[in-house]
């Protein structure tokens, strides 16, 4: 089922009209001319709307229900994927997918948050919010990749780590912290892509990479706009203002210079318009970065990753 955001509605209307005209077209009645005209108009409208999106609208796009999730990207980018389960301590966390696959014939490891599309799936995946066991599973699998010398691709798409009683009891903070420390020491290339929502520590816990990229309509911030609004504005409904203040879009983050390496172009109107095309675009970047990292030694990879994060600071030092 197609799901439309408010600002997408004018486009949706045009597209329905085009669909109807197509349906009514028969051998005797020809609407080709009208259809072409409308298609041109729709294209123009899309370009107009999508080049002028506010940060809040971009956040909504990043969360779009039809947006490709990790399993969609896996299907379109990798072959021979098999999933592995469990943290060997407590349980399997369906909010984080871990497994192994091949990228253009090369064996590799794949890690990513998974959101659902319908209500049942969403609940099963806990809206992409992992528990400590999810992060511990991810670490177990990343260290396995390290053991076998396989490059790691991670896909970030989460509102944040799950804030719940059980999560606190089982050490949500410790699980995230440990991942940050251990990922710094991985001897294999780690290539991170923020595909949708990059929310806080729950995102970072699988995002300490040699390369970090963001999809064109993804967002990445220290806190969700709603969370930020609840704290700083005392009003969770001020999300749109908070989104502006947080400067969370891929374009904003790229401007900071040190945080991401590339912004990956999406199809016009966003990745949800064409999963295959979005995946093809992403794959190109994954291959490019892998080829740049493949020849580095373990020590060089660790040092490059360390220096990458070491450089991140905006400070002033007075004499």
């Amino acid at each position, binding site marked *: 089922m197609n799901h439309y955001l408010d600002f997408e509605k004018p486009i949706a209307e045009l597209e329905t009209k085009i669909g109807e005209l197509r349906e009514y077209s028969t051998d005797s009645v020809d609407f080709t001319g009208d259809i072409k005209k409308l298609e041109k108009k729709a294209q123009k409208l899309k370009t107009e709307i999508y080049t002028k999106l506010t940060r809040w609208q971009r956040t909504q796009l990043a969360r779009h229900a039809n947006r490709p999730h990790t399993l969609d990207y896996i299907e379109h980018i990798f072959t021979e994927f098999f999933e592995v389960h469990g943290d060997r301590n407590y349980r399997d966390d369906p909010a984080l997918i871990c497994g192994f696959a091949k990228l253009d014939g090369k064996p590799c490891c794949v890690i990513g948050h998974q959101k659902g599309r319908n209500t049942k799936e969403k609940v099963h995946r806990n809206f992409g919010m992992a528990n400590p066991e999810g992060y511990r599973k991810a670490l177990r699998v990343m260290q396995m990749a390290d053991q076998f010398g396989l490059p790691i691709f991670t896909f970030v798409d989460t509102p944040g780590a799950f804030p719940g009683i059980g999560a606190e009891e089982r050490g*949500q903070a410790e699980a995230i912290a440990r991942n940050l420390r251990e990922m710094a020491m991985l001897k294999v290339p780690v290539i991170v892509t923020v595909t949708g929502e990059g929310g806080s*520590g729950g995102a970072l816990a699988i995002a300490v990479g040699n390369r970090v990229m963001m999809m064109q309509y993804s967002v990445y911030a220290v806190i969700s706009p709603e969370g930020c609004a609840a704290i700083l504005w005392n009003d969770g409904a001020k999300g749109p203002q908070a989104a502006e203040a947080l400067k969370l879009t891929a374009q904003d983050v790229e401007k900071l210079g040190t945080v991401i390496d590339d912004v990956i172009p999406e199809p016009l109107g966003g990745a949800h318009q064409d999963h295959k095309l979005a995946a093809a675009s992403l794959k190109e970047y994954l291959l490019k970065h892998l080829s740049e990292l493949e020849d580095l030694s373990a020590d060089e990879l660790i040092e490059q990753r360390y220096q990458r994060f070491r450089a991140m600071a905006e400070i002033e030092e007075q004499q």
Partner: protein
Amino acid sequence: MVWFRKKTALTASAETKKVKIPEGVWSKCKNCQEIIYAKEIERNLNVCPKCDYHFRIGARERIELILDAGTFVEMDANMRSVDFLDFKDSKKYKERIKAALKKAGDGDAVICGTGNLEELPVVVAVFDFAFMGGSMGSVVGEKITRAIEKGLESHAPVLIFSSSGGARMQESIHSLMQMAKTSAALAKLKAAGIPFISVLTDPTTGGVTASFAMLGDLNIAEPRALIGFAGPRVIEQTIRQTLPDGFQRSEFLLEHGMVDMIVPRSEMKQRLSQVLRIFTKS
């Protein structure tokens, strides 16, 4: 009428008398609600003499409690936060930094340096919750990372005393990145076999807990400190339930295996010294 006049006169004099008592002579304990002579609390290391509640203390006070007198040498005292995002909520970040600086008179939410702990050279980083809720932005992340690197370079144990609401939202993605930066530095320290002790004090939450504060070779908590990933309010809003008493307090974390021990303020220095001497075989 006579009665009436007398009464008002009495009340007025009682009121003026009240006003004359200097402020801050008496303090009310947040935990047991007892009214206590403020000097007595201070003498007791800012711990309530009635119920053992540990009041929050400033970074300088804590350094005095932990390090040998006169041995502290501060690092990066002149590092300042920058409003590189032009962040504005109800107030501009620029203004918040200015106000915090004026109030604290110090650089930022953490003070770092070297010193001796019962004659053992150590590197310390101590949070000041009074400076923007001890929040971690670029300056805090950079100072902590340099402190860890100092430990690496001089082979000295590193001690971090946390007290923080978490990442500083006004620096958005950069404050998040400080979590990765500080944790990566700790990875190097660990590989070099140098001890890192994390001391968690009230409150330690969010991005600080989810990075270096939980990564101590030992995690030591002060009694009854609030320690967690998500704040209690966020959890309550998510699960729509009131939280059980004592949830996310030091004792709860000890029970769930997240901290190694709870040490009262009065015994902290001695315990740290004991631990470090074993870890460094000195």
